[in-house]
């Protein structure tokens, strides 16, 4: 595990309050596992001390470039959104376990389900699964058309179904409303989003093999502070640490 100073190559708003930040530096060479995250410092000389855990959305190993998508919601991420090309960002990582791509049968199809700012890690994951020869289908859920992002890019990897809560794009409703006909093929499920969505996905996909990635407010990001725990009935300790045991868990492994 390492701390890196990466240089910003772009930082632009791609949907309402959603920013795409591209960073470059030699540290990107280790960022090969989808579903891991970077613990990003907003910067020195700010009263925002804590790092922000941001999922890796894409990595270009040749260009030594990593892409992060984040929502500028609080003061810290708003400050991050004002950073200019050429500025440096202090990151720890890659952190967390990430999605296990190796353990999956190649003949299987994969259904990747993301909600809101949970969508980004599915992009790198989708690319990796495609490289393995799997058929990849996405269900992406957003609040509305204005909040949607990266849809064309996902379409380049596989069939992409969009849901919006207000019906301004795609199917009106939640990601689970688009799952029914797709789970009959018994795909492997990969899902990222708020806990309430993951819970609904797990119920809908009961009996299928799959993985979820959790979000939580974090302190250290490396397993020391015990801020981001989640209860589980499958381990003797009774809990998992989302930052270091996760953020990816098997469906059913943790209590949502």
């Amino acid at each position: 595990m390492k701390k890196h100073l990466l240089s910003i190559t772009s930082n632009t708003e791609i949907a309402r309050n959603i920013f795409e930040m591209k960073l470059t530096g030699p540290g990107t060479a280790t960022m090969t596992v989808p579903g891991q995250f970077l613990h990003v410092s907003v910067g020195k000389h700010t009263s925002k001390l804590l790092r922000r855990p941001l999922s890796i959305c894409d990595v270009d190993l040749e260009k030594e470039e990593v892409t992060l998508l984040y929502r500028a919601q609080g003061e810290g991420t708003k400050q991050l959104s004002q950073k200019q090309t050429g500025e440096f960002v202090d990151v720890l990582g890659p952190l967390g376990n990430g999605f296990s791509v190796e353990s999956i049968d190649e003949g299987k199809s994969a259904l990747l389900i993301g909600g809101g700012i949970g969508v980004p890690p599915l992009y790198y994951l989708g690319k990796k699964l495609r490289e393995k020869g799997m058929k990849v289908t996405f269900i992406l859920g957003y609040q509305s058309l204005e909040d949607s992002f990266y849809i064309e890019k996902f379409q380049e990897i596989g069939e992409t179904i969009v849901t919006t809560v207000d019906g301004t794009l795609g199917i009106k409703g939640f990601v689970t409303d688009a799952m029914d006909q797709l789970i009959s093929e018994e795909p492997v499920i990969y899902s990222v989003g708020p806990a309430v969505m993951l819970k609904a996905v797990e119920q809908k996909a009961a009996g299928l093999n799959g993985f979820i990635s959790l979000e939580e407010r974090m302190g250290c990001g490396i397993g020391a502070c015990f801020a981001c725990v989640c209860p589980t009935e499958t381990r003797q300790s009774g809990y998992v640490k989302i930052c270091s045991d996760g953020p990816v868990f098997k469906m059913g492994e943790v209590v949502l």
Partner: protein
Amino acid sequence: MSRLSVSLPGLNMKNPILPASGCFGFGKEYAKWYDLSLLGGITIKAATLEGRFGNPTPRVAETESGMLNAIGLQNPGVKGIIENELPALEPYNIPILANIAGSTEEEYIEVTKQISASPLVSAVELNISCPNVKEGGIQFGTHYRSAADLTRKVKSVSEKPVYVKLSPNVSNITEMAEAVEDAGADGLSMINTLVGMKLDWRTGSPILANKTGGLSGPAIKPVAIRMIYEVSQKVSLPIIGMGGVSSAEDVMEMMSAGASAVAVGTANFVNPYVCPEIIEKLPELLDEIGVEQISEMTGRSLRQWKTPLSSR
């Protein structure tokens, strides 16, 4: 003797820096980032008699130049710590300060007996100041008679020196310090976190599931400096200073105020390498002011500047 070494009861440290309890887990997480033998010592996360799961999440909230936490003393219990956590620290050969907590006197006593008997533990830190559990010991830490009683009882069963960790959430911290000194404490750790709260102004909902939490980080450093400065003039016990320390300069300031060693807490979350970086920089700062041994820094402020003690 190296110029950075300091010696406190039970703690012979090659430098004055140790991570603060709760901010370093049981050490193994940070061992992935650097060689822990660089540290002056380690304070491990609080031990209770039985394992505790802690509070619901969210357990942390960021504040201006600080953070609130309400972890809730999550730990595997004293047996689990002795069997599974302490042995991993043995190879680093540095003093281990074991933080102990409890809900009752009996629990404190039993935890102290067990953990102080471990050959790997150099000293214990009596946590009577955790603000985040209903019965987390702060009831012992906000009244001087209860603090003194508990200190006496723990001291009578402990096989190692006892440091009492004081709460800043009291009207007169000097009174607390004097009470535990009279009760036989070997040293003080100060300060623990200040009780605080953060709300979502739109909904009125507290950010922390526990509603209130302990404030730490640079925001509380001036409070810590003031309290260490006051207490060190009234008691003769060595003080492990802590509260918002995040740089070598902060360490020098806190020792000037009266600390003999300095614990680094929240800063570990911001920069996992902060402790070794501080240690590396200390000699440079000593050179700058012409001080040879870092132990000479302790209480330097009052020696140099005969500032009248505040009337508190």
